[in-house]
């Protein structure tokens, strides 16, 4: 086992046999929790903000653990765990302002949390009650998009709308598209980057490279590091340590600011690792070795910030105990809310197909109701 430990380098991925060295990686917190500087990216956060970032990381993980348990107990149809990607998502989510619009995949629970979406409105999707229970307009967090990569074009089009509203190349807000490493192979994602580049659209492509598209490793998606693809489209690409919440926050803030001021898109590759399964239906033991997971546990994004806060004296044991207690309360609320969630009315499926209901669907709705009422007596 010592052999595995010797392979681990302080820079994520640098010592892992399956990953290339990464001199370009932006990092502000080492895996051991040491604060380091980067020549291009400074981050200005108060101690309160640091503690609040930790709280977000810890609570989102607690939510995720509870959701996985609820699925195992048959209360959710499926759950897509974000375990290991908390820093990438909270860092990006906390970089957003009220004017920015986020376009998530189906795993962005951390971004949802940062946008103020009620966890139960995400849970309801995975329980099969709805297709996402939150208001995408009020939260500025689009509904989850399951077809891989499709949302990148939506974000780009939305950004073109921002340009038209402002009459300039930028605007008060920007759009941010979330995508995974697998999505970079999709034609639509590449089209989105072409459009964003040629129109200088105020959009950020935030790619969480978690190393796997379900079972298929990154090597099957790309021969070059993903962030370098941006150069071919004609805009900057940055690789950031996705398990370092401070670096992600700094890099995403910079990219969003660049977009808003009218300088066009940025591609961010948040280099991270999906520590859990793709979803609760997946079995990662069929396609990856336990050693690899053990390596990445040493780069855990939550433990990293905790180490920094503890060592620097910015948080004490009472603070961590408080967050843990809050997590337990959150878990209880999620569990209770899930179990008490009412099933949707059967007529719900007819009611929003169109903005202007058709006679055909109205007739089917009436037929459905009459049929159901036949069982009433």
């Amino acid at each position: 086992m010592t052999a595995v430990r010797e392979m681990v380098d302080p820079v994520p991925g640098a010592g892992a046999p399956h990953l290339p060295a990464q001199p370009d990686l932006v990092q502000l917190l080492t895996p051991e929790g040491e604060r380091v500087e980067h020549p291009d990216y400074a981050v200005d956060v108060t101690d309160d903000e640091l503690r609040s970032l930790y709280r977000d990381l810890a609570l989102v993980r607690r939510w995720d653990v509870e959701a996985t348990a609820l699925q195992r107990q048959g209360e959710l149809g499926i759950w897509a765990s974000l375990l290991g990607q908390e820093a990438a998502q909270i860092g990006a989510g906390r970089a957003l302002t009220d004017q920015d619009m986020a376009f998530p995949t189906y795993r962005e629970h951390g971004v949802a949390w940062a946008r103020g979406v009620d966890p139960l409105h995400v849970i309801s999707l995975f329980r099969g009650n709805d297709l996402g229970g939150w208001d995408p307009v009020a939260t500025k967090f689009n509904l989850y998009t399951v077809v891989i990569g499709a949302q990148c074009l939506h974000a780009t089009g939305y950004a073109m709308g921002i340009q038209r509203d402002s009459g300039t190349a930028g605007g008060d807000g920007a759009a941010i598209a979330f995508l995974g490493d697998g999505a970079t192979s999709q034609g639509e994602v590449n089209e989105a980057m072409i459009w964003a580049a040629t129109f200088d659209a105020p959009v950020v492509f935030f790619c969480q490279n978690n190393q796997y598209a379900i079972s298929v490793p990154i090597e099957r998606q790309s021969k070059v590091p993903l962030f370098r693809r941006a150069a071919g489209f004609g805009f900057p690409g940055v690789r950031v340590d996705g398990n370092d919440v401070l670096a992600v926050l700094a890099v995403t803030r910079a990219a969003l600011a660049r977009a808003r001021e009218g300088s066009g898109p940025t591609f961010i590759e948040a280099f991270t690792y999906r520590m859990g399964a793709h979803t609760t239906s997946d079995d990662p033991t069929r396609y990856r070795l336990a050693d690899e997971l053990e390596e990445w546990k040493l780069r855990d994004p939550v433990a990293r910030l905790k180490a920094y806060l503890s060592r620097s004296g910015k948080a004490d044991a009472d603070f961590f105990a408080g967050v843990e207690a809050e997590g337990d309360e959150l878990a209880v609320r999620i569990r209770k809310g899930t179990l008490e969630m009412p099933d949707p009315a059967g007529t719900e499926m007819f009611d929003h197909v169109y903005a202007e209901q058709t006679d055909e669907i109205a007739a089917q709705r009436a037929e459905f109701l009459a049929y159901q009422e036949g069982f009433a007596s």
Partner: protein
Amino acid sequence: MTTLTLGKALNTGLRKAMEDDPKVVLMGEDIGKLGGVFRITDGLQKDFGEARVVDTPLAEAGILGTAVGLAMRGYRPVVEIQFDGFVFPAYNQIVTQVAKIHARSRGKLPMPITIRIPFGGGIGAVEHHSESPEAYFAHTTGLKVVAVSNPADAYWMLQQAIASPDPVVFFEPKRRYWDKADVDLEATPPPLFSSRVVRAGDDVTLLAYGPMVKTALQAAEAAADEGRSLEVIDLRTLSPLDLGPVEESVRRTGRCVVVHEAQTNLGLGAEIAARVTESCFHSLEAPVLRVGGYDVTYPPSKLEEEYLPDLDRVLHVVDRAMEF
């Protein structure tokens, strides 16, 4: 009254829609400086600017996907797909996103997108330029689908489609782009999703849409010379279907023939036949019959006149309906 070709009527309708609503944005390949390969957007970029008439990169999924984002931002995108056979790269966005986002968001995100598609054959074109893909879209819940047949409908229905809060796939009969007719620009048009009797008759109800309406009217004219009276209905809307006028007609005639260029197998005619059979069963003197393209790959242009329904094939099937 103004005399307009069908193409010019579309152009005039687009101009009116853009004047009426500053949120209307046109996107497509070659629609700006060139005015579109069929010149339907001629002059619009010059008058409304590049932010409202957008020459896009050559990527149909990109056109539809960015239209979705613009719609989410409150815009009303009108996109042009250059030819029927080129809509398929955008099919994923249309079917999985455009059609579903209203339902997914429970009405929070309407998708007022108009997808213009020149469709059908008869212009001697190469592969992928003569197809009739309307059934794919009519089958997809969440989309509305219409087809125009004449300049007046082109002018009004395009404006109505753009004003619709739902996504509308708007089929234009490309071989009729140059047909002329008088258009009353001050008229009150019928509702968008309605079919219309365009020639009254007593013996057989003939249903058509898009380019086949003209063919059906010619068939009715020829049949009249032989003493046979055909009622012709322009369906205009393919999803939702408006079968009220059809049923009223079939209850009188007892016979119904559906005409379309698209392949017969699982085409619109199949759905219409099923519904008319159910609603008019006791009035029917003959099964509902179909005249459509053969179930083959769209042929090279030297064969398209044999492939496409024409006046003679329509009358041949009308004869069959009368023989029952």
